[in-house]
């Protein structure tokens, strides 16, 4: 008789192949079309900006983690992703030294002080951007037109500002974003241009279609909670739709709202950050509803033309509350109802 070999193993016996670094890597891969389009639309300035923030994030992560843990911390790709996302939220002509500071703040203040990956309360890239917005309000709202003819032959003048100096003012090439054009001058932009990205704006927030495709890929691979973008975009569409029905001359069309500014990038890549979004499905719906509502409120009645960043940061702050108040069923445990009945 053949001898039976028994293997003794501890649970879990079924393991998912998804690990943090695979997910992060796929998110980065899904961003590649957006990145390529950003370089195509904004030229060398866009490329150097992305390289700068990524480098700054990676360096900060490495230094803060110390010699022994540094390389290990970099292997999960999260620092690279943070740097890339931060660059995508910045205007193309943003001074590189400021972008470097932003990357440092994103990792140090947004992630490291909370205890590293998995512990951060807020999306690190948005923390970096919020700090930059508060510190350099002029530089971060100076936009340049997409598809400038000399984008591959020269840098945008303000990109190469020396550290700690004010960016060179070049009013001739600055262009208003579709959102500020509508808010302050009531100029509407063609929806087709908005969706395809032939407008001025931050690096990665112009081409809505490519971002949506990247999000779709991640959602199909189950590396992204589809409820969050659907919830946010749905809320924005419904609210602006209602307002548009009331007075089309005063309020922007819902499609223009969906495709303009950082809404698509925020809804697909920022709000879906696994660490800083709620765990339960009900929590996720409330979270995305609140973000969508705040985006509309800030864009239409707030002082700023764009409010996606603050809306998502507020949603991040809400996430732990939602997780605590909404009871969730833990896999393998009795359902919540019987548990609370016993207690």
């Amino acid at each position: 008789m053949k001898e039976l070999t028994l293997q003794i193993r501890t649970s879990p016996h079924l393991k998912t192949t998804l690990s943090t670094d695979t997910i992060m890597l796929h998110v980065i891969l899904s961003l590649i079309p957006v990145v390529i389009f950003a370089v195509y639309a904004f030229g060398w300035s866009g490329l150097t900006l992305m390289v700068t923030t990524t480098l700054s994030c990676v360096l900060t992560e490495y230094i803060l983690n110390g010699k022994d843990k540094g390389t290990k911390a970099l292997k999960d790709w999260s620092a690279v992703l943070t740097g890339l996302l931060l660059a995508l939220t910045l205007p193309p002509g943003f001074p590189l030294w400021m972008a470097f500071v932003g990357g440092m703040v994103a990792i140090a203040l947004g992630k490291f002080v909370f205890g590293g990956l998995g512990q951060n309360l807020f999306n690190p890239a948005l923390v970096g951007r919020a700090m930059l917005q508060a510190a350099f309000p002029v530089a971060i709202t100076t936009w340049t037109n997409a598809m400038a003819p000399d984008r591959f032959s020269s840098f945008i003048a303000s990109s190469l500002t020396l550290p700690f100096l004010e960016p060179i003012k070049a009013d001739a090439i600055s262009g208003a974003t579709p959102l500020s054009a509508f808010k302050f001058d009531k100029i509407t932009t063609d929806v087709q241009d908005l969706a395809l990205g032939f407008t001025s704006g931050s690096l990665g927030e112009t081409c809505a279609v490519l971002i949506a495709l990247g999000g779709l890929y991640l959602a199909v691979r189950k590396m992204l909670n589809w409820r969050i973008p659907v919830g946010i975009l749905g809320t924005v569409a419904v609210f602006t739709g209602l307002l548009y029905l009331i007075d089309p001359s005063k309020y922007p069309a819902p499609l223009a709202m969906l495709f303009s500014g950082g809404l698509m990038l925020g809804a697909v890549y920022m709000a879906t950050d696994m660490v800083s979004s709620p765990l339960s499905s009900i929590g996720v719906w409330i979270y995305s509803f609140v973000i969508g509502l705040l985006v509309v409120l800030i864009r239409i009645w707030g002082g700023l033309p764009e409010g996606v960043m603050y809306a998502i940061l507020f949603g991040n702050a809400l996430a732990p509350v939602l997780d605590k108040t909404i009871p969730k069923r833990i896999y393998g445990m009795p359902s919540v109802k019987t548990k609370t009945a016993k207690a």
Partner: protein
Amino acid sequence: MVNKKATTTKTGFFDQMASAPSTDEFIKGLWRENPIFVQVLGMCPTLAVTNSLTNALAMGLATTFVLVASNGLISSLRNFIPKQVRIATYILIIATFVTLIDYGIQATSVALHKSLGAFISLIVVNCLILGRAEAFASKNNVGLSLLDGLGMGLGFTFALSCLGALREIMGNGSLLNVQIFGEAYQEWIVMILPAGGFFTLAIWLLFFNVLKKKKMA
């Protein structure tokens, strides 16, 4: 009775200087028991009025005056103040000196009075002053209480100036209203906003805690 902490180790420069108990009461507020960097007391003025070095210095010196005067008066009255109403009495004494310094600043510099705003009156509820009255002045003689108030006040001024200087340099490119960088300097607006107060406090706390840790090791 001298309120001396028996557990503190005496190794540093300041500590060696502080051989007599009276000098020790003065020295401890500057460094070892610094009101902001060690006790983390009086956070309201620390965060609110340190957006420039001028404001920080004025606030620190005004607080020092109130601290010294109220410590002295409370200490001299410590045997007459009934225990049940002591807090009310302390507040009354402190408020008197705050009103004095309030009028004093208004008489000397209206601009400074305007930039400090309500925070001068708010010295009354600064927990540092009430804390020293309750913890020290009510238990020690007048001389030691005056020294304690002076040390704590100067320590407070020193800490406030640290914050004010960093915030003014970064946020405005100037120090004591004198531009120190050229025209092209990019101001970090966030530093003179309320959020910058928290950042700067965190930076200095980190710096002093690292220093302390190195000293201990």
